[in-house]
């Protein structure tokens, strides 16, 4: 590592830190893009098998080159801008959708040291950046100058703002018990506890004492990424394809990248905050980044499973779930955790 640093310093001189940071960004974004591509493949395969089909199987062995072929096809297609559209915003909207999905990765830790920016308030940063993802959707709907797209955008705005509240409350409980806003510290706070000392550390991760919050966060995460069964803003049986109905070619693909990137982000955050991140579930196995990947993959599988099994929520039922079920549950559990921490039964010290 030191040799690499000296080598870089020798070639680039003073601007080496900037070059090194750019390199690290590439090292995060390139595998992320590849994961997104193969997540679409996995989705089609998993849902295919759940519906007793075989899914993509023509391009490459087991259809493994299918996502590349899809990407190439979308890249070649023309981007059609509707004549009544607000052209500048129509073009900017997909960028606004994907930028927060990528920017949030700046503070996501993959293990103790493998993090681009280990800042103090990384949890707050993630909440702030992910809350901006809704603009891409609203603006694409408005700029398309189409009724279906606009309806989709309105639904998305209301839905994402509502579920952000319960998501925020769930995170507040996590930061209360870990006494930190730093994601690395949040993972380390899950390392200690009675169960961890007995060697069954997966029982001292946050998911067990904060079980209601874990479920609220997971379900809000599905709603926040506009995935089935909460995909009312796309709702192809009601509003064609919702906010991206007028998009074609790469502009459409960028919305897709943003959606799947957000899925991976939410899964990673759930693993870090509730499932102990890179910590090993049992005492006799070493911690490592592979545990994090395994947990993320398991949660992503849940996302696909949801999509294959649940029918879409109706719009009013979705709003009821967000405001009348999740927000009260969160408020109550917030008080429960507060009292628990002040009582002699406190397990987080």
């Amino acid at each position, binding site marked *: 590592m030191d040799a690499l640093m000296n080598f870089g310093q020798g070639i680039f001189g003073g601007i080496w830190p900037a070059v090194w940071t750019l390199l690290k960004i590439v090292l995060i974004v390139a595998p992320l893009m590849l994961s997104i591509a193969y997540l679409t493949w996995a989705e089609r395969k998993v849902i295919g098998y759940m519906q007793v089909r075989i899914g993509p199987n023509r391009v490459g062995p087991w259809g493994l080159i299918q996502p590349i072929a899809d990407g190439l096809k979308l890249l070649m297609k023309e981007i059609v801008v509707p004549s009544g559209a*607000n052209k500048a*915003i129509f073009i900017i909207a997909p960028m606004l959708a994907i930028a927060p999905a990528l920017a949030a990765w700046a503070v996501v830790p993959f293990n103790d040291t493998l993090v681009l920016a280990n800042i103090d*308030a990384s949890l*707050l*940063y993630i909440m*702030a950046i992910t809350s901006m993802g*809704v*603009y891409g959707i609203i603006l694409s709907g408005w700029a398309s100058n189409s009724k279906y797209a606009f309806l989709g955008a309105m639904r998305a705005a209301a839905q994402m703002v509502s579920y952000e509240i319960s998501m925020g409350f769930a995170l507040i409980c996590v930061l209360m018990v870990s006494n930190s806003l730093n994601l690395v510290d949040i993972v380390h706070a899950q390392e200690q506890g009675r169960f961890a000392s007995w060697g069954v550390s997966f029982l001292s991760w946050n998911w067990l004492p904060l079980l209601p919050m874990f479920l609220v966060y997971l379900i809000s995460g599905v709603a926040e990424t506009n995935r089935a069964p909460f995909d009312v803003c796309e709702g192809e049986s009601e509003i064609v394809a919702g906010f991206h109905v007028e998009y074609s070619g790469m502009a459409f693909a960028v919305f897709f990248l943003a959606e799947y990137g957000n899925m991976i982000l939410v899964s990673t955050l759930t693993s870090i905050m509730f499932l102990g991140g890179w910590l090993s579930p049992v005492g006799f196995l070493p911690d490592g980044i592979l545990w994090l990947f395994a947990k993320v993959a398991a949660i992503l599988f849940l996302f696909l499973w949801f999509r294959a099994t649940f029918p879409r929520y109706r719009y009013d*039922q979705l709003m009821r779930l967000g405001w009348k079920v999740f927000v009260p549950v969160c408020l109550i559990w917030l008080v429960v955790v507060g009292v628990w921490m002040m009582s002699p039964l406190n397990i987080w010290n």
Partner: protein
Amino acid sequence: MDFQTLVFFFLSAILIVASLRVITARNPVHAALHLILAFFTCGGIWALLQAEFLAIAIILVYVGAVMVLFLFVVMMLDINMDRIRQGFWNYLPLGAILGLLMVLEMGLVLGSKYFQVPAADAIVPAGISNTKSIGALMFSEYVYPFELASIVLLVGMIAAIVLTYRGPKKTKYTNPNQQVFVKAKDRVRVLQMPVEKD
């Protein structure tokens, strides 16, 4: 000029252009978008001043929540620009006086050193979390003002609901509460019937 100054001027330039476009843009949605850009850049400048909690809070609250709802409303409005521009010259004197007052106030605050008002020197010691210190102060020294502000906000929220409440609904509507608790046996009855032979 060091790197920080460069970033400051870069952000300030964006902030000034964005703020100007808020009041000059003809399309209200464009104006709202420039306001969002202004808030975001403002967050950047605060982060530069090492006030990371405020920087993230303005993005979380204003960009992430308030402006989404604001944009929501602006998109729904059917704004006729000609009618809005009609009274421009009538309102200009009043607007100019208000603008001058604001400039005067800002000048007094920013130039307080010149007017011999002692300004607080903020020096952040290393290793102290901005967020933690704000939280500790808010819930110890400033707990009553904080609670008071919360109550004012709560009253504002209830007032908004009361002002827009139009009485009980006269139309027929479905109650999702009852719907989600429905069981299959409430709706469908499976009967055992002997096979009919003729």
